[in-house]
């Protein structure tokens, strides 16, 4: 079940271009700037809500996205036998896919879920690597 909900990845690798084209964002500089854009603009564009970025680690490689409005979970209750289910896991996949397309490898996981009685939804983002652009033609002599 969790694997199925990781499906967001394929959404993310397409969604990023839709976002870049519509928002006219022309560059994604640092991880910090990029996360801010996700929180302020991308969530607004696609889910009609905003979230806050907080809990940065010292080295700036990890942060949390925190939100309370969540259209995904409106009218949703988790039955007791599915308490383990990460219902919003798809958002993790979307963000991971989208950031991979701009050459940032991130780990995203849900750490707080209002469906399970937490006060807020919280997603933890960890930047693993920010890669350089690859030259695609490798067969050159």
């Amino acid at each position, binding site marked *: 079940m969790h694997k199925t909900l990781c499906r967001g990845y*394929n959404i993310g*690798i*397409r969604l*990023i*271009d*839709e976002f*870049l*084209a*519509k928002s*006219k*964002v*022309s*560059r*994604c*500089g640092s991880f910090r700037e990029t996360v801010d854009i996700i929180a302020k603009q991308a969530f607004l564009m696609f889910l009609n809500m905003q979230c806050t970025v907080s809990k940065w680690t010292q080295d700036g490689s990890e942060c949390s996205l925190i939100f309370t409005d969540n259209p995904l979970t409106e009218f949703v209750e988790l039955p007791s036998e599915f308490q383990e289910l990460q219902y919003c896991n798809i958002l993790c996949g979307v963000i991971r896919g989208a950031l991979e*397309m*701009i*050459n940032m490898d991130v780990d995203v996981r849900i750490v707080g879920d209002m469906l399970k009685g937490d006060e807020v939804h919280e997603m933890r983002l960890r930047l693993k690597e*920010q*890669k*350089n*652009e*690859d*030259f*695609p*033609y490798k067969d*050159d002599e």
Partner: protein
Amino acid sequence: MLCYNIYFYDRTGCIFYHEWLRPKPVKQGAGTLEDDQKQMFGLCWTLSNFCAALDPKGTDKPQLGAPRRIGQGCQFRSFTANNYKLHFLETPSGYKVVLNTSQDVGSLQETLAAVYDELLVARCIRSPLYKGPGQPIPNPEGFRGALSQLLRMRGVLPASQSA
């Protein structure tokens, strides 16, 4: 005002090429179309690298020849030779569009942005038939037609030039 040809690249190489007018055939230049696309990519790649390294204004100046992140440093938009002009657009997701026109054309940044938005995103990336980077554009003939139509509407491709 004339349009010569256009190249679309993603992170894996050239995904689409179209020429309206190419009086000097590829055979006399790079040899094969594939080599031609590869060399065009190399030109833009190297030129962006030089532009970023030699930028007199920016604070983020990567070393010449050093690998860069997409869009790091400044970006070149076009260059003009005595008989043609090359327009270039790069998106943060690594798509690149190169359009060659006659040298009397002004800035085409907005047009290229529209090509990205209304064509590449709308007709290719959003299409359920598109399988991700490195895969061909679905329905290339429809894409070709829409491309010519868009450029014609924007007044870049003159009506006298055939699609």
